[in-house]
């Protein structure tokens, strides 16, 4: 590794932004001020402390449009090297391929660092290192000690969470509020959870004599770079395997920073190896005969290619692939909560979520109020600087992804759906897409069939629960679904019939290390999370 350099962007000035979570309704402060600005300042809870700015506001006429001052998180805490090698056998090494590529800040379209493009030989070296570490000690480390390494990693992630969160938002474009409040706490929790399993495997699988598989090859996507790393590495190590992990091409930085956590935790060399690169690197990892198990999270298309590639090899495989989830709203649902759930379901992480609720199924009788509330709520979403703590929707991860979203949205308009996008000023540089709702969508439209993986919602309607189930299941995918109704028996009735691995009832996009996650049908097989998440990384005598 070369000398680290800190890249900083110009400060946009101190802010007084109103912290707001995507999952909660807009605070009355914001909307009340927008309508009657004069009286609103007086109703501030911190009544005694009135700043000059607020005094000015109180005297000014009601603004026609409410704007927040910027509240950017400082990126000082992060230091990014100019160039990164591959993490193999406990150290960074130059790629033998000699190739590098630039990783970008998608909100600025500016390069952050040079990343190694691992070639076939580099992947082989990493697999050898993992095999060496497995044969040479890791599989003999006592389970209780293995647990302690994982506990250490969890603790270090907690300690360094701010640094990781900023880096995640810089490299991936997701709002800092999400990387800070979702990605990081969950990543640490995942290591903590599986740490506890490491020395309890025979209780998880009584009478089955579980033992590790060997070397796991793991390929992860760019939407939750560190969290997906945690989902892969934590159970693999807890079960006693060693790993070679390939981060996504566009978002390698937090995985590379994780190597420093591995070093701090004093994990034996070669237990965790990180090889960066594009799809070619992933293909090399899949093909390498020394890998005993492949775990892949990504698109259904690539998942199928991997399954084909592994045909006849006897290698173990788990796939967590795409989705086109239905979020189903019945007429007796608590509408305001449901609308928050819809918004969280599809606009969380710019819609770059495999389980995103991208098809909204609304019962006909409440179609109009739901769509009206949804449009109103959409206009309060703040799109912009991922590092700004007020931002709800950040940058699209890459130009390629932006083009895919644009193509599908154009197809939606062409096929006859009605598009709604709230008025929204987008930054001049970077990759952005305005949160979008399509109404008047037929089931056959591409926007109702294909995974868009962007902030685009398609609204369809239904009359009866049977029709809702039929429409929801009318997809080759089966990752997740949402149901909103106040009727308990109907929730369970729906949950039984929805062909999806995760059903969120009166909530959406909840994740927890104790909760198994994974798909039905073409959304893949195998589970991550919970006791079930250990199985893909174990062999059993019976």
């Amino acid at each position: 590794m070369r000398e680290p350099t800190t890249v900083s962007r110009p400060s946009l000035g101190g802010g007084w932004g109103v912290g707001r979570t995507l999952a909660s309704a807009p605070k009355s402060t914001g909307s009340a001020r927008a309508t009657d600005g004069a009286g609103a300042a007086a109703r501030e809870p911190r009544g005694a402390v009135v700043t000059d700015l607020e005094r000015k506001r109180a005297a000014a006429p009601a603004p026609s449009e409410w704007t927040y001052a910027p509240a950017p998180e400082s990126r000082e805490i992060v230091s990014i090297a100019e160039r990164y090698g591959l993490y193999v056998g406990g150290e960074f090494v130059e790629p033998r391929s000699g190739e590098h590529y630039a990783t970008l800040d998608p909100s600025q379209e500016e390069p952050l660092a040079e990343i190694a493009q691992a070639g076939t030989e580099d992947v082989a070296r990493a697999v050898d290192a993992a095999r060496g570490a497995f044969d040479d000690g890791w599989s003999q480390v006592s389970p209780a000690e293995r647990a302690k390494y994982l506990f250490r990693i969890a603790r270090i992630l907690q300690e360094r969470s701010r640094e990781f969160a900023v880096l995640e938002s810089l490299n991936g474009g997701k709002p800092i509020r999400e990387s800070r409040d979702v990605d990081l706490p969950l990543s640490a929790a995942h290591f903590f959870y599986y740490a506890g399993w490491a020395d309890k495997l025979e209780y998880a699988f009584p009478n089955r004599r579980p033992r590790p598989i060997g070397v796991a090859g793991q390929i992860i996507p760019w939407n939750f770079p560190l969290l997906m790393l945690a989902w892969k590495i934590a159970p693999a190590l807890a079960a006693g395997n060693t790993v070679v992990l390939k981060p996504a091409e566009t978002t390698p930085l937090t995985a590379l920073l994780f190597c420093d956590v591995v070093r701090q935790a004093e994990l034996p060399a070669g237990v965790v190896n990180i090889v960066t690169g594009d799809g070619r690197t992933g293909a090399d990892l899949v093909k390498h005969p020394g890998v005993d198990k492949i775990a892949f999270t990504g698109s259904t298309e690539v998942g199928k290619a991997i399954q084909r590639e592994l045909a006849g090899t006897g290698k173990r495989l788990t796939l967590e692939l795409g989705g086109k989830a239905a979020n189903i709203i019945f007429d007796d649902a608590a509408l305001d909560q449901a609308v928050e759930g819809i918004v969280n379901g599809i606009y969380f992480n710019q819609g770059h979520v495999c389980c995103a609720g991208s098809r909204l199924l609304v019962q006909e009788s409440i179609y109009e109020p739901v769509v009206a509330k949804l449009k109103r709520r959409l206009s309060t979403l703040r799109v912009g600087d991922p590092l700004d703590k007020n931002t709800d929707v950040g940058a699209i991860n890459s130009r390629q992804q932006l083009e895919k979203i644009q193509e599908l949205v154009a197809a939606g308009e062409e096929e006859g759906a009605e598009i709604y996008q709230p008025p929204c000023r987008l930054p001049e540089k970077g990759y952005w897409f305005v949160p979008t709702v399509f109404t008047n969508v037929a089931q056959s439209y591409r926007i109702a069939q294909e995974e868009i993986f962007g902030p685009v919602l398609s609204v369809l309607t239904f009359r009866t629960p049977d029709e809702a189930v039929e429409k929801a299941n009318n997809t080759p995918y089966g990752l997740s679904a949402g149901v909103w109704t106040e009727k308990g028996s109907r929730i369970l009735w729906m949950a039984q019939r929805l062909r999806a691995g995760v059903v969120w009832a009166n909530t959406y996009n909840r994740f927890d290390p104790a909760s198994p996650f994974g798909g039905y049908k073409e959304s893949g097989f195998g589970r991550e999370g919970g006791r079930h998440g250990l199985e893909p990384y174990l062999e059993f005598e019976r």
Partner: protein
Amino acid sequence: MSRLPVRKTYKLFVGGAFPRSESGRTYEAEGQNVARASRKDARDAVRAARAAQPKWAAMTAYNRGQVLYRIAEMMEARHAELADLCTGAAEVETAIDRFVWYAGWSDKLAQVLGSSNPVAGPYFDFTVPEPTGVVAILAPEPPLAGLVTRLAPVLVGGNCAVVVASEAHPLAAVELAEVLATSDVPGGVVNVLTGLRAELAPVLAAHMDVNAIDLSGADGDSAELERAAAGNVKRIVRGRADVQSPYEAASFLELKTVWHPIGT
């Protein structure tokens, strides 16, 4: 006066009925002319299985257990006939006991394989196993116990099956189909095809409405079948022909996790 015995025509078992192959073809096995299922018969069998699956899965686990147990009762009654068509009485008894063993699992699988998940928030979160749907089985040898060892764990979880019988020894499978038809198994839950593996297996492996394929009985290299199975991300199962385990049933189950907030 000697009586002329009535001979049996060996037919397919699809959707609860015994059709000949739509192609009209037969092939010779074990000294008999046996129906040689066509590609279309295979597709028809998948349709029958798909149609039967929701009801079979919706049956209470208790009832499904009763039905599986009933199969064992009916097999016991045909003990002698079955023994003539396989390696003998011991194999028949293995097969019967297999059904009895799995019958008892129907209302216990969810307790062993499911979980309630203590998430860090005010939610009730639980995971339950559910059938994957339609399963294609290439039955391994021996002709009766091999087939039953793979079939019973598929059925107990609520799946429907399309079974390709042993090509060389298909008669036991046909006899078993007659047992199934006279027990309480709803039509279409099990479909039995006799014919040429090379013809039928690729159709089932590539079929977009088959959720899982059990290759335990695939001869030799099955890479081509596995490649075809990737077309709709099928679950590929390679189990053993001689073991019984709830985890064999688990291979044909999906796990569904449900979240609900806890509040007043």
